[in-house]
């Protein structure tokens, strides 16, 4: 009785599984050792971050208004986007104005832009989006999708990347990571110089100052948000923090949880467009994306909006590790995706994702903002009508009628789906008979 998820896993390439296993385990271990070095009590830190994010969600309306006001004061143009269509229309509008013949748009890694399928819309409108994060660049030239929210190509190995680079004419065939990386660097450098528009996401936005904070390791994000004349940042409305004094805790937690680093190489604190410095964008636009978030905020899964997109839950999840991100068939995979996807798009459409979990709870233990994912998965399952199967009526009947139960339990057999992979247990001892036979 294998659904789409399990079917995908059955067809998986062993190489992809091996790659994903190695990467997720490596970062999973690095996370706990680094966070243990940084914080005296890691769980304390997670709970503290959870309380700040809970406060943000409780006061989102007021904080967004404050943020908007401060952005305006800083010279940042704020746009509001109800849904993906509106966000795309806004971004396309800016690009069309800036470069009527079609803009070259250099892109930094942003899951929000994946969520709205921005690249597809940019291309259809005659613009040229170019992913500049190395992993996203590989995804783009392969016509693939990212399989992890932090490390987009953990499902690929060097041979696949080498073949892709050779196909794109980036240089002589090589499988050496250093050489491949330098080929990408040289190729993308020209794009940074010529692009009219740079698009990025936002990791944290500070309500009290209107500051946009972006973290990265490669430097492409800084280049995207510095070199072109126009910078457009897309941000989920939940990404706020109240004050700059909150940043240190979250920056440490994000880096430690995402990659096992103390901090990412670059933490960019963007106030607004260039002022008296020699360079920087002339225009900075911030697009606030709702796309279902306000509805989630008013429902039982609101706590998933605390998520800071660190990917730690993916790295900790035994299901993700065995299945790889593409099994989830959604821009947000893994434990966070199993809640966020059906929460945003409906249980009817994506409720099956909530069942792709053994409820082991590792995700909750590593989440830097302590999101109770397992409980949310259980609740999602209870909302999906397809889970109200006949067999549970029979089960409930038997469990409320002890005579039937006592008779039935002796005849119980594991279903065929069990026996596909495992031998069934042998019923060797009857507890009830033993109990009856005692003096």
């Amino acid at each position: 009785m294998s659904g789409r998820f399990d079917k995908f896993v059955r067809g998986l390439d062993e190489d992809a599984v091996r790659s994903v296993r190695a990467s997720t385990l490596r970062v999973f271990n690095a996370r706990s050792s680094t966070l243990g070095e940084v914080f005296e009590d890691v769980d304390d830190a997670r709970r503290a971050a959870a309380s700040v994010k809970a406060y943000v969600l409780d006061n989102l309306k007021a904080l967004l208004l404050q943020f908007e006001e401060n952005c305006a004061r800083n010279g940042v143009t704020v746009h509001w986007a109800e849904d993906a269509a509106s966000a795309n229309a806004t971004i396309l509008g800016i690009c069309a104005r800036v470069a009527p013949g079609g803009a070259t748009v250099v892109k930094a890694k942003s899951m929000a832009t994946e969520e709205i399928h921005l690249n597809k819309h940019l291309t259809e409108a005659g613009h040229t989006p170019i992913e500049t994060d190395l992993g996203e660049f590989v995804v783009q030239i392969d016509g693939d999708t990212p399989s992890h929210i932090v490390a987009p190509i953990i499902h690929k190995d060097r041979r696949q990347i080498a073949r892709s680079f050779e196909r794109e004419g980036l240089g002589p065939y090589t499988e050496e990571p250093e050489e491949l990386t330098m080929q990408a660097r040289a190729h993308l450098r020209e794009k940074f110089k010529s692009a009219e528009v740079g698009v990025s996401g936002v990791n944290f936005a500070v309500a009290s100052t209107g500051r946009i904070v972006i973290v990265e390791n490669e430097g492409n994000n800084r280049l995207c948000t510095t070199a072109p004349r126009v910078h457009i940042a897309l941000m989920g409305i939940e990404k706020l923090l109240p004050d700059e004094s909150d940043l240190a805790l979250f920056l440490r937690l994000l880096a430690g949880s995402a990659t096992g680093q103390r901090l990412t190489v670059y933490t960019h604190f963007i106030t607004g467009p260039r002022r008296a410095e020699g360079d920087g964008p002339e225009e900075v636009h911030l697009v606030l994306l709702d796309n279902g978030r306000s509805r989630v905020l008013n429902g039982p899964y609101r706590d998933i909006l605390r998520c800071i997109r660190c990917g730690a839950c993916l790295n900790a999840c035994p299901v993700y590790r065995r299945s790889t991100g593409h099994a989830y068939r959604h821009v947000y995979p893994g434990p966070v995706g199993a809640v966020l996807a059906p929460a945003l798009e409906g249980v009817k459409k994506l409720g099956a994702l909530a069942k792709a979990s053994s409820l082991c709870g590792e995700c909750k233990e590593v989440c830097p903002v302590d999101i109770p994912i397992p409980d949310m998965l259980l609740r999602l399952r209870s909302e999906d009508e397809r889970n109200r199967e006949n067999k549970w009526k029979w089960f409930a009947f038997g469990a409320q009628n002890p005579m039937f139960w006592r008779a039935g339990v002796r005849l119980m057999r594991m279903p065929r789906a069990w026996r596909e992979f495992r031998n069934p247990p042998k019923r060797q001892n009857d507890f009830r008979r033993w109990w009856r036979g005692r003096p």
Partner: protein
Amino acid sequence: MGDREQIMKRLPDPKSGERPTPAVRVRTPLENLWQEFGERLHALGGRVRSLESLGQFRDNAVFDEDLPESVREVLGSPVTDVWEAAAGVTLGDLAVAETGSVLLAALPGRSRLNSLAPPTHVVLVRQADIVASLDEALARLSRQTSVLVTGPSRTADVEGVMVMGVHGPRSLWVVPIP
């Protein structure tokens, strides 16, 4: 109704209540800040260097206008194209011992790309301008756009193998000055 109005309408009214101010204990260095800083920077692949080492970039670097006069003399004439320079030399506003980071604000006379485009980035930081923790550093964040640089550029996208200098500088030197 515009997008803004639609979204605002759906957002619940703010809850009254105390803003949480959790005190989270972090392991930060208490003394020997420059030594701690140097060790962290070194572990990241960066280096603490001396002013003398700048000589090799004479006439081959870009640099911010607020560098000390003596340093600008050593560097000679700046390269016109930041993308062609061998090094970018900038003044850092703060060093952070906890993380081995340097904080740079985009102040007048500075160019953001100077610290980003050339393959070597040299940051001069005054001896007194060092703090122990990230919290202290961020408390002194300039109102201007700023960047906190924690080591040279890197990626591990190809099979988790670390490669330096993918887009940003491959080499990061920090030069403490009086």
